[in-house]
């Protein structure tokens, strides 16, 4: 046996050994832990309801500043110490729109639009970007790998990536370094029977409710008023609607 044959045998042995070890590590937890997985927290949620927001821009005197502050307080974003301004998370922001032809302008809060056919859900490789049965689009941070494909796909630029380790997080809304996050309609509050924080901050301008229920305040308002979806041309059937734009 020449030297090369000997090197080759050793090399192949090492490669095969490493591959075997990696395969065992990958498969074993799958076999051993699957039975022990906890019951999903969202198991009781059904598609009987579809939550939505109607924002009347004319009644938002501050353009949504109060809503944004309430959201920051609820979820603890907006002041990540090491991130620069372009890296800092913004779950909702105030967008100023100026029409080119007339010069008329107005401001509105823009956040996740909770699309029925959400592009972020389609592109996510792990299923972390998901839509609950009740229409709330959110990120399962336990399986988000931080690939940011959903950020590329979102037509509303509604998502942020956490660029650093975070401390002092809100117990009801944990955030995680290296994962993507966005407005989740305050799912933790909705599940407890409350309104999203932004709605309570601007009750005169925002209606929250069940889009599937024709008698709900939001459904009534949608039938009685002219309302708009941002980028309606994309046919995403958003859960967030606007009035007065």
């Amino acid at each position, binding site marked *: 046996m020449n030297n090369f044959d000997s090197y080759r045998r050793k090399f192949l042995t090492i490669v095969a050994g490493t591959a075997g070890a990696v395969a065992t590590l990958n498969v074993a937890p799958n076999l051993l832990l699957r039975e022990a997985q906890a019951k999903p927290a969202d198991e009781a949620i059904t598609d009987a309801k579809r939550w939505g927001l109607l924002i009347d821009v004319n009644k938002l005197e501050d353009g949504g500043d109060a809503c944004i502050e309430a959201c920051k307080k609820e979820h603890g974003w907006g002041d990540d110490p090491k991130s620069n301004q372009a890296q800092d*998370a913004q779950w909702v922001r105030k967008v100023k729109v100026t029409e080119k032809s007339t010069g008329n302008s107005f401001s509105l809060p823009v956040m996740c639009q909770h699309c029925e056919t959400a592009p972020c859900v389609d592109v996510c490789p792990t299923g972390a970007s998901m839509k609950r049965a009740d229409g709330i689009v959110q990120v399962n941070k336990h399986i988000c790998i931080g690939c940011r494909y959903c950020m590329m796909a979102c037509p509303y630029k509604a998502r942020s990536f956490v660029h650093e380790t975070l401390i002092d997080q809100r117990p009801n809304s944990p955030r995680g370094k290296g994962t993507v996050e966005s407005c989740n309609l305050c799912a933790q509050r909705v599940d407890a029977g409350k309104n999203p924080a932004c709605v309570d901050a601007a009750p005169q301008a925002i209606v929250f409710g069940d889009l599937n229920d024709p008698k709900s305040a939001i459904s009534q308002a949608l039938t009685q008023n002219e309302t708009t979806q941002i980028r309606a041309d994309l046919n995403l059937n958003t859960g967030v609607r606007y009035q007065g734009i």
Partner: protein
Amino acid sequence: MSVSLKTSYSELENNGIGFWGIFSFFGLLLIGGVAAFNYMHHHGHYVTGMNNQIVWGIPHVFAIFLIVAASGAANIATIGTVFNKQTYQPLGRLSLLLAASLLIGGLLVLLLDLGSIGHVIEMAKGALNFQSIFAWNMILYSGFVTIIIVYLWTMMDRTKTAKSFYKPLGKINFIWRFILTMGTGSIFGVLLARQYYDVFVMGPLFIAASYMLGTAIYSLLLVTTFKLSQRDLGDVIIKRLRYSLPLFIVAVLVFELVRHLINIFVTEHHGIEPHILTSNSFSKLFWFGQILIGSVLPLFLLWSGYFKNNTVALVSSSILIIVGAFIQLYVIIIGGQSYPLVLFQNADISSSFADGVFNTYSGTLPEYLLGLGGIGLTFCMVLIGIKIFRMLPTSLAD
């Protein structure tokens, strides 16, 4: 039967400063990449130039560059097998080794840039969304490496069983590559609100680019390793590579033309074309980098009768093509993201979240090191491969 039976192969015997110098160079790149990953992983992505506007940066340019090149590099082997071109058959082993190494290098860069790499284990546990082209690509990429290993076995094992799988594996590899590169291009093709990407032609463009880039890298590797081991490289091979490269360059140019024309004719995409083609930052890269350096100059070097059978011209044009293809991907990935999303038609928008403005990006050192680490890993694998296995024909003299 294939020529590979008649061709004799041997390991790279060269133990001189040339081999170890090159190996050390790529080894250092690999170490730099590992250090950069460690740094970025420890601190988080705030130490990079990436942000919530440009979410994919330089690491993605390197990763997609390597993955696209991988598919093209395997083309040399499939031409030999599927189309029975005997001249190409002795080149097959190196072609597959290079392809697998490029793919692994690219995938590792992609993987190490993830925000939460630890969560990847969830995918092994079944967290896969088959609506996502990304999830499909994971399967396509790992399948590609597996196919290459089996395909290499059919080339290298002398038993009849192995040889009987040679042709079928070549065909599977050929089809698999086609789907794989289409899948890589489609990552961009399905982004409906991104003006620069929402064009079906991204898939075919990536296929053409893979042939061009893969062949260029292969040519460079072939000439270098043959020079290093003082083996004969005949004019026939040089001529084949010289003739095929321009075809691929022209194919890429045609698809680029179609893509830009579609964007110009589709009203809603009007804004993006001036941004890429006439604004200062990206237009210089596009016209000087991709078109002049990456296409026109190599076409001249490859087509000009003056450089007939000239290895230097082949090497130079390969280097230019590689540089051009990298710039092309930079313009596609970074340039495409730099254009703001249109939330409202016929209106100017502004916000604290960079709405309505052209986004800027400059990659930081760790990002470049991570990307270069992928190249380091690729060529460390190639060099180890040709040192340990009989990958290189002892001679390719005419």
